[in-house]
């Protein structure tokens, strides 16, 4: 059993499903997260390496401050790899140098790829955002704010008979 951000993820759960247990992560985001950390579709939480778990945890704790993804080179068909005794650290250092050089030369006007996971919000951050949104609606005196304050449906639903969920959950201090 792994605990990430206080959420327990049982070992027998598939990783793609387990990540949806975070508030703010659904199936789509979970698949993107798995791709980012090279977790295959049928991987179970118990099969993840410690490195994958720690990088997942550090990413989810603040997705917006995560470092940008490096674009590693992919072998063309006629590529001949260097011998096995080549140090991977050397190759990484070489790659980083090349990246730095291309970054200098790159066109400033070119649009950078916007990582959808950078704008991800989970758990407490997301709950805060929701609370702020409701508080803002109340502050500006809008209809939406008033309905939240009265514990009634906000989106124009009928209240003659059913409004049970709204009466139970709609409030100003929702989260």
């Amino acid at each position: 059993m792994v605990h990430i951000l206080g959420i327990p993820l049982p070992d027998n759960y598939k990783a793609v499903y387990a990540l949806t247990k975070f508030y703010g992560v659904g199936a789509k985001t979970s698949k993107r997260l798995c791709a980012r950390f090279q977790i295959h579709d049928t991987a179970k939480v118990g099969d993840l390496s410690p490195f994958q778990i720690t990088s997942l945890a550090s990413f989810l704790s603040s997705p917006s401050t995560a470092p940008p993804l490096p674009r590693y080179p992919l072998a063309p068909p006629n590529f001949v790899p260097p011998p096995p005794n080549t140090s991977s650290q050397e190759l990484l250092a070489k790659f980083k140098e090349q990246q730095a050089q291309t970054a200098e030369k790159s066109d400033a006007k070119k649009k950078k790829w916007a990582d959808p996971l950078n704008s991800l919000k989970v758990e407490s951050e997301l709950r805060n955002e929701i609370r702020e949104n409701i508080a803002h609606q109340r502050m500006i005196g809008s209809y939406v704010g008033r309905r939240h304050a009265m514990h009634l449906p906000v989106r124009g639903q009928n209240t003659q008979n059913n409004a049970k969920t709204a009466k139970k959950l709609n409030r100003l201090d929702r989260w």
Partner: protein
Amino acid sequence: MSLLSSQHRHVALALAEAGSVLRAGQYRTAVTRAAPAQKQSQSIGGVKRGRKEKWEKKMNQERAQRNRDIPKFTRYPESKLQIPKTKERPAILPEVFQPGSGHSLDLPLFGPSTLTAKSVGQATSFGTTQTNAAKVFGLPNKMHFEYRILSTPCSVIRDVTLKAIHTLDKAKGSSSKDHRIVLHGRAGSGKSFLLHQAVQYAQAQGWVVLYIPRAVTLVNSTNSYAYDIRTQTYLQPRASYLTLDKLYKANSALLSQLTLSRELVTEKLNIPAGTTLAEVAQAGIKDKSFTSGPVVLETVLKELETQTKFPVLVAVDDFQALFHNSAYKDPFFHAIRPHHLSLPRTFLEFASGQRTLANGVFMGALTESDTAYAVPLELKDALNLESRHPVSPYDKRDQVKLGYTEGLKGLKVPERMSTNEMAGLFSVWKDDMALTTDKYDELFMSKYVESDGNPRDFVWKGLLSTLSP
């Protein structure tokens, strides 16, 4: 004279048997428990006058109906349910149907003596040693299911089997650049079986065999993957480890006679030149974290490429899956191309001739039944395969994938089995007591015609699914 009808008696005895598996007391109490007392209903918050009585009446009616549907004998004690005259258990199955009865087909062994022109149509069984390729590498799904039902793994010798064997014999001693064969044909025509026969023959003749029965598992995101900056591809550590392990188990005797020409030095390993390939493989297998798997497998394969002492057969079933973009995603959420995954890249390079076995053959078999990984346009072009729909020259073909299809030779597996061959297949299932009728001629001819000579349809939709008495 029994109190119960025969039908009820059978059911009662089945229940009794099931009950005997539980502890005696447990079953008895369940059977002799009295019917539950009628419940009083309780209303919360008050109801209209008369509704409570209506509910109660309805609930009692439903309970009575439910109890009426359950047969009375479920409430009888065990002693009352036994057969009156004897205490024996009934309906003893014939010995042959008892589990562990030891019934098995008596067939000649698949080998050079049974692979003659005379033996076309003859069913032969495969060896069941621990190092047999089928046992070590596994089998394609549909073959696996079939062998689970049959008492002995076997197959029928066909004309095309002799052709394939002849190709292997001719190719022995020469480079795999000239011998890259892809088996193709209609769905269910016997491509996987033929590839399996070729693998068995090669192993029996002392070839080093690397058999991948389900290449689709390398591209459907069911194995771990990790980017490697040295090879600039995504390694598949667990899949490479398992392939290395199986290669070692199936060919340990031959690998212990081949040696490493250059030393292998990595962060974890330091293997000097001159070590036997068997020991090299063992060193890779020892590392249970799978990290050495890819490197050691590559090293062993490189040595097998250059050596000429033993011919090597690389056999890949589900070959068309290697030409599809995989189900793996890179960190940017784009599908990873197959030549950017370590194992698919290896097999694509062998198939295209970029890597050649100095003494060996590459053989692939297509799978027409997989709709997720259908045969792509590039392969259809290369092998001149028939297409159901008209193919336009303007349809996009991937140039990289086309490059990997260069020089592939197709070997067509005939759509229809001949009557001789089909009779051999029929006799396998007949002798293994899978048929429900003894009107063999009638059954054979009707199912042969219905299946249009297609072996899979003949067996699965004909013989095994027939309701004919």
